[in-house]
């Protein structure tokens, strides 16, 4: 079955071709079905491969298709690598992808750009598969840029809206900045290891110097930060909400943003050699987590809240990678894909229900409330997702998030652990704030839009339910004994041993595993306290949200009035966008404008006709009726024109002037000789 891996990208490619060329004319409304069918087929192939990998032999298989570029010693081929890490990623991508396809068939029904949307969606799946399946960095980069392009197209799907196309452009350019870092990282890898294929690179990795590994790590992390929206380059994700909700669900929750995490995990052997890079990643992850979570507290737009929650959860994943727990990072990636996908699709069905409300109120929570009775399925699936993300024990979120925090604590990153815990608290708080504002309390929806609110059709609610089941089951089955669960053993061969934090981490991890294995009890005093603390944080967050938004709704306004500065700061997202606009985008515009005028007048001018010379010659020409001196005449040319006028008018027409000049010539020559 593994040998058929090349089928996975082929199906979406087929979908793209069909919908792309015949979309507008023939497969008008059936485009959605075709696209979903293709996604489903590739999902089946993935299941087959996963089945063979999990229960079969496992290990690493490379399928070579054709060699792509070769220039001297640099040669790269198009080949796929199937190993545990890529299998997990394939499962997540194709699974969530298939569900989103089904969901968007219903969601986008009747939209004029219907075939175009599904072409882009299939193109996105194709690029994501290339990214995950590629056996070398270059093919990953191809997928990487392809995904960036699709996010540009999908965010800017409703291109009539100026804000949508601006958001798309912003996303692509910020990604491109990240890609620049990725490119430099790739070159360094090639220069230091002589190849770009993973197996060869990791084979040579041990004898890379620490400085080299750190440099590569940091450069690659810039790429990851650009793609997975970490601190400096996260600004595009919140704006990406301009795109349709399934897009946000698929791209900005489950798959694309996780590419960065996958890349760091994949290059773990190099990162291990450069611990400095890991420290940076851990710190950035933690800071991003708490920073995004804090913004999420006060946002009123339902999708913005989820967007900042994604950024903060990604912060968690990078925190896991930073502390060396690559397995935990991937595990959280998987669980996050489930419940964040669920939450986004849930919010999508809410917005879908409110589409009769005025444009700006459709996504604003202040004009929602009391939808619980109207949309029971959405409500309950939404609650499961929220509970999972908050980290309440039985559900998926608890296992993966707790593991990250535990690893952070035991590997000595106490500051990171503190930040993580506070972020977890905030996560629980804003998730349940969202639920109480949208589903509970009295109905604040616009009057005439109220009668249109109804439960979404089955094509939308079925994926919600599936994801809800996955959110519940997805955490406990693979990861029950923390650190010892099935997922860790499965992923171990393709991830480097997390040696971060030196020997202490291993000992602590062993300790936890030992305690877990002893009959599922929570042995070991430190681990037990940690788990209890985590649960307390989750429940505390929920209670706080319950108290402020259900019990007496005056409290949030009171708080806002008492700390007006802090509230406005958070509401305006720390004015980050304005800062970027002021200190990066504006100067570029000014530079651009000045360079253009510099080019038009000075470079062109100095070569063409510097103002001084033309001025002189034009005034001079007034006297000698210069015919064609215009400002743009070539500088050298205007000098020559100036002298040509001078020479022309020396020819006075009087013979004796000529004779005099001749005599003068003789005289000059004579005196030059005699007195030299």
């Amino acid at each position: 079955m593994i040998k058929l891996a090349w089928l996975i990208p082929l199906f979406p490619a087929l979908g793209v071709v069909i919908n792309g060329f015949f979309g507008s004319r023939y497969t008008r409304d059936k485009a959605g079905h075709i696209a979903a069918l293709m996604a489903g087929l590739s999902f089946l192939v993935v299941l087959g491969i996963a089945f063979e990998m999990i229960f079969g032999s496992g290990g690493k298989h490379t399928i070579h298709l054709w060699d792509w570029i070769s220039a001297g010693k640099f040669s790269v081929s198009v080949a796929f690598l199937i190993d545990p890490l890529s299998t997990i990623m394939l499962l997540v991508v194709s699974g969530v992808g298939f569900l989103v396809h089904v969901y968007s068939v219903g969601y986008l029904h009747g939209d004029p750009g219907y075939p175009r949307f599904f072409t882009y969606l299939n193109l996105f799946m194709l690029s994501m598969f290339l990214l995950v399946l590629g056996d070398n960095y270059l093919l990953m980069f191809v997928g990487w840029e392809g995904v960036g392009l699709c996010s540009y197209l999908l965010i800017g799907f409703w291109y009539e809206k100026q804000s949508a196309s601006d958001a798309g452009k912003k996303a692509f350019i910020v990604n491109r900045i990240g890609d620049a870092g990725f490119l430099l990282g790739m070159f360094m890898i090639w220069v230091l290891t002589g190849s770009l294929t993973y197996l060869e690179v990791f084979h040579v990795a041990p004898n890379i110097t620490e400085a080299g590994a750190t440099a590569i790590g940091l450069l690659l992390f810039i790429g990851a930060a650009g793609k997975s929206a970490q601190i400096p380059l996260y600004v595009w994700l919140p704006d990406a909400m301009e795109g349709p909700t399934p897009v946000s669900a698929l791209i900005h929750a489950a798959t694309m943003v996780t590419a960065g995490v996958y890349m760091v995990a994949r290059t773990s052997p190099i990162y291990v050699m450069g611990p400095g890079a890991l420290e940076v990643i851990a710190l950035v992850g933690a800071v991003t987590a708490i920073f995004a979570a804090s913004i999420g507290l006060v946002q009123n737009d339902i999708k913005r809240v989820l967007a900042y929650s994604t950024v903060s959860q990604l912060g968690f994943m990078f925190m896991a990678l930073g502390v060396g727990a690559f397995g935990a990072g991937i595990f959280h990636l998987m669980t996050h894909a489930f419940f964040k996908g669920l939450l986004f699709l849930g919010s999508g069905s809410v917005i879908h229900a409110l589409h009769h409300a005025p444009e700006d109120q459709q996504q604003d929570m202040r004009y929602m409330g009391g939808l619980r009775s109207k949309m029971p399925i959405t409500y309950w699936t939404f609650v499961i997702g929220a509970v999972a993300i908050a980290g309440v024990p039985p559900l998926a979120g608890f296992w993966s998030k707790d593991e990250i925090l535990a690893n952070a604590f035991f590997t000595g990153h106490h500051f990171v652990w503190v930040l993580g815990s506070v972020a977890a608290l905030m996560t629980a708080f804003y998730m349940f704030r969202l639920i109480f504002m949208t589903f509970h309390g009295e109905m604040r929806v616009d009057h005439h839009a109220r009668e249109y609110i109804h439960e979404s059709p089955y094509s939308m609610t079925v994926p919600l339910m599936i994801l809800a089941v996955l959110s519940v089951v997805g955490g406990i089955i693979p990861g029950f004994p923390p650190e010892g669960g099935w997922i860790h053993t499965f992923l171990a061969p393709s991830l480097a041993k997390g040696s971060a934090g030196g020997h202490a981490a291993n000992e602590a991890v062993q300790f936890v595993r030992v305690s877990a294995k002893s009959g599922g009890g929570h042995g070991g005093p430190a681990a037990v306290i940690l788990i209890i603390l985590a649960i307390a944080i989750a429940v505390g967050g929920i209670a706080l949200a319950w108290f402020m938004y259900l019990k007496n709704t005056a409290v949030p306004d009171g708080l806002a009035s008492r700390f007006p500065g802090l509230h406005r700061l958070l509401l305006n997202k720390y004015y980050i966008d304005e800062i970027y606009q002021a200190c990066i985008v504006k100067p570029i515009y000014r530079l651009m404008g000045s360079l253009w005028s510099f080019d038009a007048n000075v470079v062109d001018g100095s070569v063409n006709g510097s103002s001084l010379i033309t001025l002189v010659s034009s005034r001079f020409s007034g006297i000698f009726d210069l015919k064609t001196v215009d400002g743009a005449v070539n500088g050298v040319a205007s000098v020559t024109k100036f002298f040509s006028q001078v020479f022309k008018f020396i020819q006075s027409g009087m013979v004796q002037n000529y004779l005099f000049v001749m005599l003068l010539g003789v005289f000059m020559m004579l005196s030059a000789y005699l007195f030299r």
Partner: protein
Amino acid sequence: MELLFFYLFAAGIIGASLLVVTRSNVIHAALLLVLTFFFMSGVFVLAGAEFLAVVQVLLYAGGIMVLYLFSIMLMNAEVSVRLRQFHRQSFFTIVVSLILAAEIWWKVLGGGAAYPAFKGFSWTLGTTPGNVEALGSILYTKYLFPFEVASILLLAAMIGAIVLAKRTIDR
């Protein structure tokens, strides 16, 4: 003795030529030019070139100056006597020509280191075989080619002058 005659003739030449250049009346200038030529023939005799002296007087003074006088009459050029005679740029000309003369005089003629030793001629005035015979012989033997070219030159000048000066050309 010889030197005395030389200074006399030189003074004559320089005086007359200065006058030629400065006189406003064209006819006076022409006549003064004839006077110059006479003094020149004197110098030539002193230098042992008797034939040349005679040719100077006969050909130059007689032939060319007559031509000038005819053309002056033809163009009744004396009407221009009253007009400003000197060219506007004459001031610069005087300055430059004086400096040029000084320069030649001091640097060029002062040198003379490279001049050959004096040899002079064997013949004396009036004796045969004198200057004329020697001149005649080499003119038709050694310098035959330039002689022929000179004749063609004169022919060309003649035809050219006729073509330009004739009032109307009918034939």
